[in-house]
């Protein structure tokens, strides 16, 4: 298997509160023969906060990362800058689009990059880890690598907002399916639900999970998501954004108190689930960092049966 190496842009949150995302991403990519090189000296993408202060500066922040990625990957080919955080992905993508349209904004950004000795040639493209897994590495390769299928695990994929909005580069905007297909490929059962792209309130945090910027509004949004997922039988909610993840996971106790209804839904990064199916050590996937995690009983039982059967074969051999 040839190793394709990608430039990895972790972003602040996937290094902090969502560090399990980065950990599991590294483990999964390596396992699938795709390398990740962390972009050296990356800076914040600008998130949604910076455009609220200065749009051009926000683009410039993201543009520096794209230009750095090109700088670190000499040659003529495209450079895929892979983000884990959906917010970073969106910020880099918007900057890429702004740089790609000739006009005053692109000229200004070009000038600013030149001031720090960088330029953007148009080679660096913003990609999301889910996009890479589904469309580059491919579901077939993932399916082949599965050693521990998550049999019976009902997973509601939560795409959140910025993975497909405002631009939808790799999936349908209204009804995305990438994560569901990924979930299917690792032997779990996707749960169809209408809220897969409904806002969790996470980016109210303006670029980093901060506890309680607008506690009540956010909590209502994320509670609706968890309640609906659970109602449709989901045992795990899969996310692809550290903000969504924290937001859905971090306040379940409080939600229970606020809405008078017990809430206890494991929320995992989709890469963690993929890693589990690939048989990667749970610790390397950062599963111990989750606040609510358990293997659903049916999946655990199927796992025990499988191990027993394999053991049996060994015994006979």
């Amino acid at each position, binding site marked *: 298997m040839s190793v394709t190496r990608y430039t990895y842009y972790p972003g602040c949150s996937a290094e902090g509160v969502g560090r399990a995302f980065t950990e599991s991403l590294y483990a999964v990519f390596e396992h699938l023969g795709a390398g990740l090189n962390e972009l050296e000296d990356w800076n914040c993408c600008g998130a949604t906060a910076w455009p609220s202060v200065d749009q051009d500066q926000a683009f410039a922040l993201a543009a520096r990362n794209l230009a750095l990625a090109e700088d670190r990957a000499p040659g003529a080919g495209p450079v895929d800058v892979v983000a884990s955080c959906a917010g970073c992905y969106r910020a880099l993508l918007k900057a890429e689009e702004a740089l790609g349209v000739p006009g005053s904004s692109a000229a200004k950004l070009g000038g600013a990059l030149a001031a720090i000795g960088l330029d953007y040639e148009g080679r660096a493209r913003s990609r999301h880890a889910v996009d890479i897994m589904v469309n580059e590495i491919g579901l077939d390769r993932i399916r082949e690598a599965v050693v521990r299928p998550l049999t019976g695990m009902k997973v509601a994929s939560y795409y959140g907002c910025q993975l497909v909005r405002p631009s939808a580069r790799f999936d349908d905007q*209204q009804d995305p399916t990438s994560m569901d297909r990924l979930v299917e490929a690792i032997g779990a059962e996707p749960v169809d*639900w*209408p*809220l897969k792209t409904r806002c969790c309130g996470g980016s109210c945090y303006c670029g980093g999970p901060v506890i309680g910027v607008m506690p009540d509004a956010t909590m209502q949004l994320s509670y*609706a998501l968890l309640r*609906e997922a659970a*109602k449709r039988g989901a045992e795990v909610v899969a996310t692809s954004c550290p903000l969504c993840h924290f937001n859905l996971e971090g306040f379940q106790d409080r939600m229970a108190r606020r809405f008078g209804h017990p809430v206890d839904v494991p929320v995992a990064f989709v890469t963690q689930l993929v890693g589990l199916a690939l048989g990667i050590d749970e610790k390397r996937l950062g599963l111990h960092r989750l606040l609510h995690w358990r293997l659903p009983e049916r999946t655990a039982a199927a796992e025990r049966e499988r191990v027993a059967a394999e053991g049996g074969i060994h015994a006979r051999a």
Partner: protein
Amino acid sequence: MLEPESGLSSQPIPSNGGPKIGVYVCHCGLNIAGKVDVAAVVEFASTLPNVAVARDYKFMCSDPGQELIEKDLREGLINRVVVASCSPLMHEATFRRATAEGGQSPFYFQMASIREHVSWVTADGDDATAKAKALVAGAVRRVALHEYLEPRKAEVRSDVMVVGAGIAGIHAALTMADAGKHVYLVERESTIGGHMAKFDKTFPTLDCAACILTPKMSAVRSHPNITLWTYSDVMGVEGFTGDFTVRVRHRPRYVKEDLCTGCLECIERCIHKQGKFEDEWNEGLSKRKPIYIPFPQATPAVVVVDPETCIWFKTGKCPQTCIEACERDAFDFEQTETFDEVKVGALILSTGFKTFDASKMPEYGYGLYPNVYTSLEVERLLNAAGPTSGEVVLRDGSKPKVVGIIHCVGSRDAKHNLWCSKVCCMYSLKLAHMVKERTGAEVYNFYIDMRTPGKGYEEFYDKILKEGVHMVRGRVAGVTDEAASPEEEGHLVIRAEDTLIGSVRRIPVDMAILAVGLEPQPDHQDVRRLFNISCGGEGWFTERHPKLAPVSTFTDGVFLAGTCQGPKDIPDTVAQAGAAAAEVLAMVDRGFVMLEANTAHIDDEACSGCKTCVGLCPFSAISFDEERKKASVNEVVCKGCGVCVAACPSGAAQQHLFTDAEIFSEIEGVLAYV
């Protein structure tokens, strides 16, 4: 040859003496004069070679304006005319007529478009004046070279054809047939009636659609002057205005139309005891057998066998109980496609519309949630002859208690169709009324704007409001089965901002009706090419002029009626069908049409016999005399594109009104002075 400042002296002119040109600059009220310095253009024109008279007038197209031209011609002041005004597509015919009235060949005329091409599109007055001068100079230069031409006449056949037999086609066909013309009415479905035949009631009068339509349908069937071809398609159209040859294909229905009495015994006796296949006529809400009739009043009342689902066609093994059941021996399983070729003088296209595919808006859940319906499906539910005999029920057979009607689905939406579909507000009100009447349900209408212009329409809206239908002003964000409260549990929830109260509402309903918009037929491009007409980017057929020639097309002899030209309701459709019929009758009754004089011809002496032109002509109008080694153009067949002229290496091919010399002069003219 022409020297710009050499006055009247140069140019030997073939017929009416040296050119004495009259230039008439139109103000068009302020449409031109508001931007272009008309006086300066007149002043400039008077300095141009061969110009004898230069005048301006407020409205050249008015009677006094035309009279100016005629008078100057009659008095011999001028013998050629240039009018600088609007587009030739607008008034060329008017001024040619004036030129003829003045006693000259109508083709001693040239128009300069200084309105559409100058005053309306140019920001700066000086720029506009300069451009107007250039165009006038071009016209003056070329008209000096115009030759004497006779107007060509062509006979018009009195038979006519109507393509598409919805209410538009039916009305147009009956009107013309009543006037004594023989009408071929071609319909691709197995019955005529179109969309209107699917409705139960029509707005705003709530009269029964069948009661007003079916008499017209049977009149079509029995009219001695109408040849009705259903299950048929137009395959080819040749010829030109007054003399079209149309090839029509008849698809096999495996039942002889002249023998079938419509007793429907065969359907009863079909080996399939129950309907099994999606009934297209009922929007898939019911099942039909492989042998079926769309609805009881279908015209012609002849059954159709669907070979896709018929066991005999699929396996060759079937007792064929249908044949046994038929007392008239009408079945013919060996039937194949047949063709007819007819000659007609004029054509009316009334090919209708299709409704927007609601599954393109997944946020509304059509296809996902069973109780999300399109408006057309609900029309069928409401129809007494429909799948539920007029009962409005949910998929599980229960009656809805709350119904939401979502307007503008697919319309007024930059992601789908930008246009307003014109009929949805009104039909949504109609549906609201009928659903409420039949079920007693609470009905919510969600609208962006209410658009009810039309006789009795606003009054109808008032009536519906008084009936207690809820109106929520706001575009619906989505339909979901996600329950946010116990009351929403088990319902569909319509989420919309109520912009009048300024808050987001979630309204639980049992049934959501999507008021889907109108779209061009999916094969509009093929049809457009077939009839050599044009359509806009969205696919509606383009009328010749949006106001003054709303049923004509750019192809003479082809007319439009109904929704193929744009969304419209039944009254407008019928009015337009009547108008199209009147246009055709005017043409047919006159008996001839005037043809453009712009045909090609070949100068025998100059022709080198290279045959380049022969192969180029798309209409095979050029023949080659092998003995004389000369090409010649059949000017009756020639359509005047000029392709052969551009290609002729020896300059032997020329086109009337577009000779090389005329065009070279026009080029010089538009560049020489300004």
